[in-house]
């Protein structure tokens, strides 16, 4: 059963071949055993999962099932779950049990899905390797057979590793600069970052509010569509959520790709992209040509400024978003503070990890008097130039394709000494968040036994088209079905 997709499991449950309780037990058993090696989960909610599975079986028996009723999955530990620890990978929230649900959490509850636990992540979603988690690094299941401990990418590395290792068929994730697509690529799974505003951010612990977007991770594009059907939609509790109809994302998966116009941004096929990686990505694009798509080179002239703009805007927003973690009302408080200032400064020095503190300090600096114009305002202007690049590109093409990452999964510890080296991991993904457009990463081959991701970028609200393109590709390739040994 663990190799089946959400769609398949849903059919099994519907046919009555297996109950949700049985299915949940199987997945929990496997999860508890396999995750000792991977550390992809921070919390496993066994009791709650079994209770939910039981309730799901009753729902199904009562004829009130949705496609998700009784299907196991997991939440990235950034989504608040009522009564279940929500840590954001941080010591600051290690003891934090929210008395409320994120809207995304609530949506999966309503759909009857069975959450097995909370997946590991870079602290406060700041990172590209899931090594900055207070709960220890997650290991990429790929590479283990060669005796190597490689990173799963990040920040949603726990979700990606868990899905790749078949511990869950699907997991939620979030993406601020590549945090869904990069780990999906490095773990050989399929992930989607929707248009900004498509999925509610309520109860999703904020990193950078104008960039954060909740999204999906599963092995198949079809399962991503099933997830998005549950997650997408207007939420009155999120002022930046968009009131716009949500299509059935599964309905258009089988549209033919004949005539699809694909743009290849030339800036995304240069630099530190290895020849082996490029060959795999170009191979995938040839598959699209066989499916009837046309290929055209396009240019995103300001692409090289994306990382610079991002590392002003994201830390600036984060510096304010993370001010609430002050030891006063919830979360970590340092021992025996001698006065208020001592409580603030020690709580935050001890509760946050190195990378989080670095970003808060950079963001504070960029917003401080004398630097605001040169950094923050300038970055916002560059952000518009980057957005304009995409708007121009989509005048001529339907989707853009590129590698998701410049290289496959790297060895743990390799990039932790220099933050900037780590930042460059997101060189092909970060501009998409600045523009707010949707993008996917789809398994597209292997280099040295490690997965390679193809990034498919779309115009605003084109999730259905991206899922369609990914699904059609997965009908003629089996990269997404490969299983790490």
């Amino acid at each position, binding site marked *: 059963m663990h190799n089946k997709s959400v769609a398949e499991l849903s059919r099994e449950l519907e046919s009555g071949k297996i109950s949700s309780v049985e299915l949940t037990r199987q997945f929990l058993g496997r999860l508890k055993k396999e995750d000792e090696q991977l550390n992809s989960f921070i919390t496993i909610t066994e009791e709650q999962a079994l209770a939910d599975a039981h309730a799901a079986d009753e729902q199904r028996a009562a004829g009130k099932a949705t496609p998700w009723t009784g299907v196991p999955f997991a939440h990235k530990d950034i989504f608040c779950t009522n009564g279940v620890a929500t840590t954001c990978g941080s010591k600051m929230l290690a003891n934090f049990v929210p008395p409320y649900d994120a809207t995304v959490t609530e949506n999966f509850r309503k759909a009857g899905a069975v959450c097995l636990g909370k997946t590991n992540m870079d602290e406060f979603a700041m990172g590209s390797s899931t090594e900055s988690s207070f709960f220890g690094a997650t290991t990429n299941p790929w590479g283990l057979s060669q005796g190597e401990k490689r990173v799963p990418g990040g920040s949603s590395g726990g979700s990606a590793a868990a899905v790749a290792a078949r511990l869950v068929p699907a997991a939620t994730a979030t993406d601020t600069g590549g945090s869904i697509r990069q780990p999906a690529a490095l773990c050989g799974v399929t992930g989607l970052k929707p248009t900004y505003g498509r999925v509610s951010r309520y109860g999703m612990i904020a990193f950078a509010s104008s960039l954060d977007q909740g999204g999906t991770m599963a092995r198949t594009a079809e399962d991503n569509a099933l997830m998005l059907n549950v997650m997408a939609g207007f939420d009155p509790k999120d002022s930046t959520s968009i009131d716009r109809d949500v299509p059935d994302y599964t309905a258009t998966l089988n549209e033919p790709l004949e005539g699809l116009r694909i743009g290849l941004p030339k800036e995304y096929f240069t630099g530190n992209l290895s020849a082996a990686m490029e060959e795999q990505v170009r191979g995938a694009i040839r598959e699209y040509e066989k499916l009837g798509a046309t290929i055209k080179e396009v240019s995103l002239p300001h692409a090289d400024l994306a990382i610079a703009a991002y590392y002003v805007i994201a830390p600036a927003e984060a510096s304010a978003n993370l001010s609430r973690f002050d030891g006063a009302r919830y979360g970590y408080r340092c021992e025996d503070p001698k006065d208020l200032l001592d409580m603030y400064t020690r709580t935050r020095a001890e509760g946050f990890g190195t990378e989080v503190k670095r970003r808060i300090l950079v963001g504070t600096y960029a917003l401080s008097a004398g630097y605001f114009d040169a950094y923050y305002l300038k970055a916002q202007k560059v952000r518009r130039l980057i957005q304009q690049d995409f708007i121009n590109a989509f005048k001529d093409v339907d989707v853009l394709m590129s590698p998701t990452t410049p290289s496959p999964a790297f060895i743990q510890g390799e990039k932790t000494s220099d933050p*900037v080296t780590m930042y460059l991991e997101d060189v092909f993904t970060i501009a998409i968040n600045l523009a707010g*457009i949707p993008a996917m990463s789809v398994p597209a081959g292997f280099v040295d036994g490690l997965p390679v991701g193809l990034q498919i970028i779309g115009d605003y609200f084109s999730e259905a088209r991206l899922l369609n393109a990914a699904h059609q590709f997965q009908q003629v390739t089996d990269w997404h079905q490969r299983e790490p040994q």
Partner: protein
Amino acid sequence: MTISRTDIEKVAVLARIRVDEEQVSALEKDLGNILDLVDQLSAADTDSVAPMAHPLDAVQRLRADEVTENNEREAFQAIAPATENGLYLVPRVIE
């Protein structure tokens, strides 16, 4: 762009993060590297470009003035570090 020790100390005070003496050198290097990366921005010609605060060109929705929240003090204070008589307790401000 280099960032001075004084800058780091100033920013750490603003951000309310205690930075110990031995951490300053590492921060000087790391933040300096990040700012070097960020300094690429100065190359961009943005003279006639409007700053973009938000990805979508949308307008704020407003909520009706109706009470939707109940008293949930018990649930919220159950996860608080220190409370008494319904108040959150924090150390005093020493001026």
